[in-house]
C-alpha cells in the first residue's frame, strides 16, 4: 500500500468541566481555534474536517454532527462525523489519518466534543437506549451494570481484590492534579478514599468511575511535506488499528478484551513494533473505570493477562515508572466528555513526545506512545501509535 506519512502538528483542549456555559459548537470552536493557533494555521488552510462525538442524546441534539459543524471549522469544507461510541476519541484521528494518508487531503482538522451536562436528570438515562430493545431494555438497565458485571468477572478470573484495582483511580486522579484542564485532579486522594466511596453497582464504587463532563479537544493532522514545513517537531502517526467484537456481549469472554488485542496488533504491525513492552514508552489506555485501564493494558499486550494490577501496585505505571500509564490523569482524573476524552489521550501523547507536558512530563525523553479507546457496546477497540 502506498500511504503517505501523517503527523500531528497541533493540539488544543478546553477545560473539562461539569457544566460548561459554552454550547457544544462553542466548545468545538475553542478547541479547534487553539489547535490551529498552535501551528499558526488559518481556517482557510484546512482542507477537510473530521468530527467525533458520542450518542446524540448526550448533547440532546439530534444529528449533532451537523449541529457541531460550524464550531468545528467545517463551513464549506469536506466534513464527516465518525462514531464508535466511547471508542470515537481515538477513532476520529484514525479517520483523519486516512483522509491524509490516502493523498486526498494535506491538512485535516480533527475535533471531538461532548456536552453531557445537557442530559437530564443524568446521562445514565440516555444509556438505556443503547441496550438491545428486545432482550435488555425491558429490564431497565443502566450504564453501570454491564461494566460492574465485566469488572466482577475480571476480579473473579484473576482472584483480584478491590484494592488492587482502586490503585488505578488513585494514580490517575493524582496525575490529573498536574493537568490545567482537569475536573477531578486531586494530589491528596488515598486508596481509602476510593474504597470508602459509595457503592453504585457492586463492585463499582463512586470513585472507580469517571465523571460526567463537558469539553472538547482538537488536533491538526498534516501530510509529511506540509508537516516538515510548518512544524519543528511533528509527531508521526506510526500505526492505527481498530476492531469490533460481537455485539452479543453475553456471548463474549468478559475477562479479556480480545478486540483490543486485535486492534493493537494491527497498529503495532503498521508501526513496525515487534516488542511493545520495550518499544512503547508511554501508554494512554482508556480508563472510564479503573479496572478498564488494567483490562486495556493487558489487551494492548503491555502486561500479561491478569498481571496489570501487580504492575500498578509495584509503581511501574506511575509517571516516573518504567511504563508511565495515563500520565495525563486519564478519564478518571481529567474527566470524561466521551469522544473528547479519547482524543485528549492522543493530544497527551503529542505534548509528551514533544516534551511540552509541563508538570506532567514523563522523564527520559519518551519517543513512542500508544493511545487506546473503547466503546460501542463495550466491544470496540481503537488504537493509535504515535512517535517522534
Amino acid at each position, binding site marked *: 500500500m502506498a500511504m503517505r506519512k501523517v503527523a500531528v502538528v497541533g493540539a488544543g483542549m478546553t477545560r473539562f468541566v461539569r457544566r460548561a456555559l459554552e454550547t457544544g459548537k462553542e466548545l468545538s470552536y475553542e478547541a479547534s481555534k487553539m489547535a490551529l493557533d498552535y501551528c499558526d494555521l488559518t481556517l482557510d488552510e484546512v482542507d477537510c474536517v473530521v468530527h467525533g462525538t458520542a450518542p446524540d442524546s448526550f448533547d440532546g441534539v439530534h444529528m449533532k454532527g451537523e449541529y457541531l459543524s460550524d464550531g468545528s471549522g467545517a463551513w464549506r469544507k469536506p466534513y464527516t462525523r465518525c462514531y464508535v461510541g466511547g471508542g470515537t476519541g481515538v477513532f476520529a484521528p484514525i479517520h483523519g489519518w486516512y483522509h491524509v494518508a490516502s493523498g486526498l487531503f494535506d491538512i485535516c482538522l480533527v475535533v471531538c466534543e461532548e456536552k453531557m451536562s445537557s442530559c437530564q436528570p443524568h446521562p445514565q438515562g440516555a444509556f438505556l437506549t443503547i441496550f438491545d430493545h*428486545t432482550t435488555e431494555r425491558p429490564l431497565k438497565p443502566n450504564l453501570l*451494570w454491564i461494566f460492574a458485571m465485566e469488572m466482577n468477572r475480571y476480579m473473579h478470573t484473576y482472584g483480584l481484590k478491590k484494592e488492587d484495582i482502586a490503585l488505578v483511580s488513585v494514580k490517575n486522579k493524582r496525575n490529573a492534579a498536574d493537568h490545567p484542564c482537569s475536573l477531578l485532579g486531586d494530589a491528596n486522594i488515598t486508596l481509602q478514599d476510593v474504597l470508602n466511596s459509595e457503592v453504585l453497582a457492586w463492585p463499582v464504587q463512586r470513585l472507580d468511575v469517571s465523571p460526567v463532563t463537558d469539553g472538547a479537544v482538537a488536533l491538526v493532522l498534516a501530510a509529511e511535506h506540509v508537516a516538515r514545513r510548518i512544524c519543528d517537531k511533528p509527531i508521526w502517526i506510526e500505526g492505527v488499528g481498530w476492531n469490533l467484537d460481537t455485539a452479543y456481549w453475553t*456471548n463474549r469472554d468478559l475477562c479479556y478484551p480480545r478486540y483490543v488485542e486485535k486492534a493493537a496488533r494491527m497498529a503495532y504491525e503498521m508501526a513496525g513494533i515487534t516488542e511493545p513492552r520495550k518499544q512503547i514508552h508511554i501508554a494512554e489506555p482508556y480508563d472510564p473505570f479503573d479496572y478498564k485501564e488494567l483490562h486495556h493494558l493487558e489487551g494492548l499486550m503491555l502486561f500479561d493477562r491478569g498481571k496489570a494490577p501487580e504492575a500498578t501496585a509495584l509503581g511501574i505505571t506511575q509517571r516516573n515508572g518504567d511504563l508511565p500509564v495515563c500520565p495525563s490523569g486519564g478519564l478518571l482524573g481529567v474527566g470524561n466528555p466521551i469522544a473528547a476524552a479519547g482524543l485528549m489521550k492522543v493530544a497527551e501523547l503529542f505534548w509528551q513526545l514533544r516534551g511540552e507536558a509541563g508538570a506532567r512530563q514523563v522523564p527520559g525523553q519518551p519517543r513512542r506512545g500508544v493511545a487506546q479507546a473503547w466503546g460501542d457496546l463495550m466491544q470496540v477497540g481503537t488504537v493509535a501509535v504515535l512517535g517522534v
Partner: protein
Amino acid sequence: MAILNKPDKVHQAIAWHGDIPITNRYTAGVAGERFFREVKENGKFMGTRCPECDLIYVPATMFCERCFAELDEWVQVENQGQVVTYTILYWDLDDQPLAVPLVLALVQLDGSDGGLVHYLGETDPEDVYIGMEVEAVLKDPAEREGSILDIRHFRPIQV
C-alpha cells in the same frame, strides 16, 4: 491559553428544559419472534445451532455472525444455568438510591453458548456467587406476553 482559566461557575446561565418526543414500536425479529413465542406458549428456551461453528446461540439468532450461515436448526436448551457474573445495584437510572438493592446476573443456560441477563431473586444478595446454579422462574402462562419479562427472574436451585 486564557480558556484554561475560565471559571467553572455557570449557575447563573439562562437554561431551560426540552425533550425529543419520540416513541418506538419494535419487533423481536424472525428468530426473536420464535424464541419469545416458545417461552410464552410452551415455557421453553430455544437456541439456534450453527453446525459450521458448533455454537448454539441463545437468544436464538437468524444467522451466524462468525460464518454468515443462515441458521435453521432449532434446539431446546435448559431453563437453568450458571451465573457467569453479577452485580448488585444500589442506585437507579436517575442516580437516586434504590430502597432495596437489585441483583442482576448474566446466566449461561445449560446446553447453549449464550446467556441471558436478568434479575436474580429469592436470594440474599450476599449469598450470590459466580458459578451459582440458577433456574428461570416464568410468569403464569396467562400472564405471558412474549417478552423478556415473561421471565420473572432467576433463582438459586435448591439442592
